[in-house]
């Protein structure tokens, strides 16, 4: 045990304040977290927001993608995107994953029910080529339809 004898009388108040105040700020923030939880409000550190399936796909939120699909979200439908996620207001989850250059997300979506037909694959493939993400292009190649062409003529990217 350190410090058996007292010493308040000899210590300058300035030094006590200098020593304690920064720590008390950390304690106050912790207290805010604890009190927020106690009254049923999410503490600021743990405050996020719900994501659509396409937002989750763009924001590398694999856990949320799987959870949303398991909850009934359609992996082939268009879902809205809030401003600042990608430069589009709505995309399919696969488009969002390609737009965010997330090869692992493309694979995850394909494993969980996303489907691409010949035209859809070509559109995604051209989109991926446009982003310059070689790993996404390679991932899409694994799901290439037998009769799909890779020509990008007449294809315009979602954004």
């Amino acid at each position: 045990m350190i410090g058996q004898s007292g010493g308040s009388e000899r210590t300058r108040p300035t030094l006590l304040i200098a020593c304690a105040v920064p720590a008390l700020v950390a304690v106050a923030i912790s207290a805010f977290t604890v009190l927020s939880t106690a009254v049923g409000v999410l503490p600021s550190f743990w405050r996020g927001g719900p994501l659509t399936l396409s937002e989750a796909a763009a924001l590398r939120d694999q856990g949320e993608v799987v959870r949303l699909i398991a909850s009934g979200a359609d992996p082939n439908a268009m879902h809205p995107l809030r401003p600042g996620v990608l430069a589009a207001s709505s995309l399919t989850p696969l488009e969002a994953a390609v737009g965010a250059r997330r090869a692992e997300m493309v694979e995850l979506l394909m494993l969980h029910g996303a489907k691409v037909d010949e035209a859809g694959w070509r559109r995604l493939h051209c989109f991926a080529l446009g982003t310059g993400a070689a790993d996404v292009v390679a991932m899409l190649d694994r799901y290439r339809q037998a009769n799909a062409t890779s020509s990008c003529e007449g294809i315009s990217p979602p954004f």
Partner: protein
Amino acid sequence: MPAPRLSVYACAALLAASIAYGLLRMPLQVHDALDEIMAAQRSPGVWASFTSTLGETAYVRPLRIAETKILFDVSGGHYFAAYKTFHIVLLVAAFALFLGELSVQTWTDAAAALFALTVFTGLHTFLGFVREAFPVNHFLQVAVLVLIAVRLTRARPRAAVGVTANLVFVAACLTLESGILVWVAAVASRLAGRRGISDRGLVVMTALLAVYGVVRFVWLAPNVEAMANASGYFFERLDAPQIQERFGSGLSRFTVYNVLASIATVLFSEPRGGVFVFARAWSMGDIPPRMWINVAASTLTTLLMLGAFLRSRDRQPLVFLAVLLASAVASFAYAKDEIMSVAGVFYAISAYWAVRILIMRPLRAPAAVALAVVLVAAGAGWSIRAIGVNHVLRAQAFAVHNDWAVVPEAMERRGTWPADASTRSLVVGLRDESLARPIVNPWFVPRWADRVFEGDYY
């Protein structure tokens, strides 16, 4: 209880509660935990779990495996609750034992203790106590056992104290290799004048240490030699084959580097895992504020300790120095911040000792102002680092949540997807429970937070 001590305990309770909340927001992890939980399910009993890995790996951690089994069995299917409760109990015990080392009587003590509390939680080695669990956090458990042993060294000497200290030593050694720090702390405490553990008790503990050494380095010698881990070396991170190729096996400049780097990481928050991340960031022209904060807070505090050490004949820092040195030597094979986590606890205890000595000294006004400035600068840094623990837990929760998303596909690819239906059902249940937990996507986190608070350096 005197008001100053009560105030410090209340502050510590709030800090601990905030961190505990973060632990509850984090799902059970996949890596290094799921396999352990599956093994607990398959194991016929606690003793079978205890003996299951003896002699088969380089590690001697049977107690942790047995604890995993006990918690699994008592959980009644509520695995998350069982493992998290145990983690939080250990965390609270660590806070309580840490405060017990500070003996707060006056408001001067309380001020120094508040400073030390933020050092305790803010130092990056503390993250090893909370960021992961396997599913039992053995680093935290060993820290608690070392603190109990140090507490015993201050008890009234009697046979029961010696017996308890030896039981603590055995438990620590069976939890993790760092458990030998119990012996280091007990012997250093004796050298510092604490006589709670009798000579006989220390002799028995030393004999047990010798037995442990034989088991570890003779019986398990082939496995120990095969140990290989990635580690940092100046500005780069090397994987095991690269280390072998560049430095060979046995004593080399790499092992010496690891020991020195491990000492430096506690004293200066650099390097991290053996990598000089601050210097590397400097060379790249962008040092995030968090690195300035880490290095400045640690360096100023270490200088305060040095100042107190030069002015005091107190032998209290001996325990810290012994634990620091022993932990660093134990890191000879690879530098890992978690291995230094017990040393980090004693660094914070020494910070209390140093700050208390310095603020009690009669100082002229200019010197007092200078000390106040240093205390505010260091304290602010530690405060930010302590708050940043929540940020780290939030980021870790997101990472763990994502890990569960690729179960069972990733396990099938690795060939670890269990064959029996009950284990599959267990894994799927754990996955569904983990994925259902609400997680904060980093997109919602302000950009500045990643630059100010602690992050992943590799």
